[in-house]
């Protein structure tokens, strides 16, 4: 609270005081009061006026100053009134009560909103688990049908007959469906405040292995050559979350492969400065310089997303959020027309290191 502004705010009272001062002075002069008495009366009047003024300024200043400081220091501003003592002047009491009520209602609303997000997340988790059952049953049924064909001596293997082509398509569509349900699962997991992961020691080779095994057909259909090296490293992470992140990166590599050369996916890890860096590098069409800084933004599709397959712009956004929550860094480098490389950085000196 600034003194100047306080004075300015109370100018009416000051004017009234000054007018009273002038009237009393004139009255005293009119009644020929002795000058010594006039000076004494006016001095007493002035001193008490100023004292009352300063006293009022001081007690208000104490309250407002504390309120202001709380507001600056607090991360959650709605709690500012909770940690201030009630003032001893009337207006302050009104303000304090108001702020307190507002803060309380805000807190209630926040916790309601958080609860409903958590409920929604729980529902999504359950829903996704349920949705996976029919997908799993259909995939099996599709596979069993194909096998039936083989047992009856029908075409199988490299010789892709109509039946096989059809079952292949069904399988691909089902896998896509599964990938979409995974995406919503991890989206909600990444948005919820509560900690929903388990950090433990995990081998990068194993994490990449299960992603690769699941994506094998897609990678091989697109003629990818996989080169891995140095993956025998242990990092601290949630391997299921990491598998999802890698799946997003690799499906981008598949989507945005270059047509004019043999496709290569290089996955390698290096250890340096208390960090492990996992690199996922393809030799695809790359990302334009203008788009590169924005690829992790929500719903960003960019040039590639528009020109090629339709893209939701969510994969990398979710991947980045998951990495953030796990405490890993994620970044991308690219030269358009040459390559795209994603780098995930795992800290080795984390407090939870074994």
């Amino acid at each position: 609270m600034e003194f100047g502004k306080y004075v300015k705010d109370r100018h009416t009272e000051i004017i009234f005081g000054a007018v009273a001062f002038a009237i009393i002075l004139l009255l005293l002069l009119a009644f020929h009061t002795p000058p010594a008495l006039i000076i004494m009366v006016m001095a007493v009047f002035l001193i008490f006026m100023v004292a009352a003024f300063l006293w009022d300024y001081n007690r208000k200043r104490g309250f407002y100053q504390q309120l202001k400081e709380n507001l600056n220091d607090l991360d959650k501003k709605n709690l500012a009134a909770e940690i201030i003592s009630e003032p001893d002047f009337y207006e302050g009491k009104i303000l304090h009560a108001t702020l307190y009520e507002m803060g309380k209602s805000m807190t209630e609303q926040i916790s309601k909103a958080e609860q409903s997000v958590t409920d929604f997340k729980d529902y999504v988790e359950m829903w996704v688990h349920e949705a996976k059952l029919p997908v799993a049953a259909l995939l099996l049924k599709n596979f069993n049908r194909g096998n039936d064909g083989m047992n009856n001596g029908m075409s199988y293997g490299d010789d892709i007959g109509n039946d096989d082509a059809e079952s292949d398509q069904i399988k691909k569509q089902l896998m896509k469906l599964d990938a979409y349900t995974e995406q919503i699962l991890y989206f909600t997991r990444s948005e919820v405040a509560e900690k929903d992961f388990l950090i433990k020691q995990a081998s990068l080779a194993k994490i990449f292995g299960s992603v690769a095994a699941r994506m094998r057909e897609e990678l091989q259909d697109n003629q990818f050559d996989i080169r891995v090296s140095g993956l025998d490293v242990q990092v601290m992470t949630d391997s299921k979350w990491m598998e999802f992140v890698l799946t997003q990166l690799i499906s981008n590599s598949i989507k945005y492969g270059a047509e004019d050369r043999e496709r290569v996916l290089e996955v390698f890890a290096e250890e340096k400065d208390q960090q492990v860096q996992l690199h996922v590098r393809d030799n695809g069409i790359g990302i334009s310089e203008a788009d590169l800084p924005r690829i992790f933004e929500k719903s960003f599709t960019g040039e590639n997303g528009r020109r090629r397959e339709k893209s939701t712009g969510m994969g990398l956004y979710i991947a980045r959020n998951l990495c953030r929550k796990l405490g890993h860094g994620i970044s991308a480098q690219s030269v358009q027309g040459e390559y795209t490389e994603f780098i995930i950085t795992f800290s080795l000196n984390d407090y939870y290191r074994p």
Partner: protein
Amino acid sequence: MKKIQIIEDDAALRRELRILLEGEGYAVVETEDYENLAAEIMKSEADLILLDINLPGINGEELLRRFRKEKQTPVIMLTSRTSETDEVLSMSYGADDYITKPYNPTILLLRIAAVFRRMNLTGNVLSWGGLSVHPAKGIISNGEKEIVLTKNEMIIFEVLYAKAGQIVSRDELMTALWDNEEYVNDNALTVNISRLRNKLAELGCDGAVETRKKQGYILWNSENM
């Protein structure tokens, strides 16, 4: 014939699993009483149990924990739960493997075969015809001569061996290799198979691996050779 018990409350999935496993030559033991799974699983005489986690009235992990106190039958968890916590819990309660739905049927069959293979290894040696095979050491020998197989060749041999006398498609071999962190391409698979063939020939097993055009490969039983 190996008996596999399926504990899965989704009827459609159970039916397809049964078809899959029977097609592969396993006998399937159905679970009758889903109300009293705890008692039901204890009576199980199967050689392997496929266990779901989300079961009516009981959690599969809890079921596994109680089961493990009494029996050592291998258990593979099949679940649609994709959280690290579930996997860690299941493995610490003694699951032999943990596979998430929807699974690749070929991988599921390979993992089942792998569990049985681990059980059957007597002193870590497979015997096939006059040959003895040490998967862990990567060595195959006919008593006089020892030959070293690469990791890829051994994986291929093991898959062919597990289905000796039956056609194994290239797709199955490929799946097995990738499931073991060997990301070979089509050409490399062909090369690996011909190397394996040559090595077997060196030990006097010419023609052990037969090519079925457009279908796959067969490893002949020692008796048929």
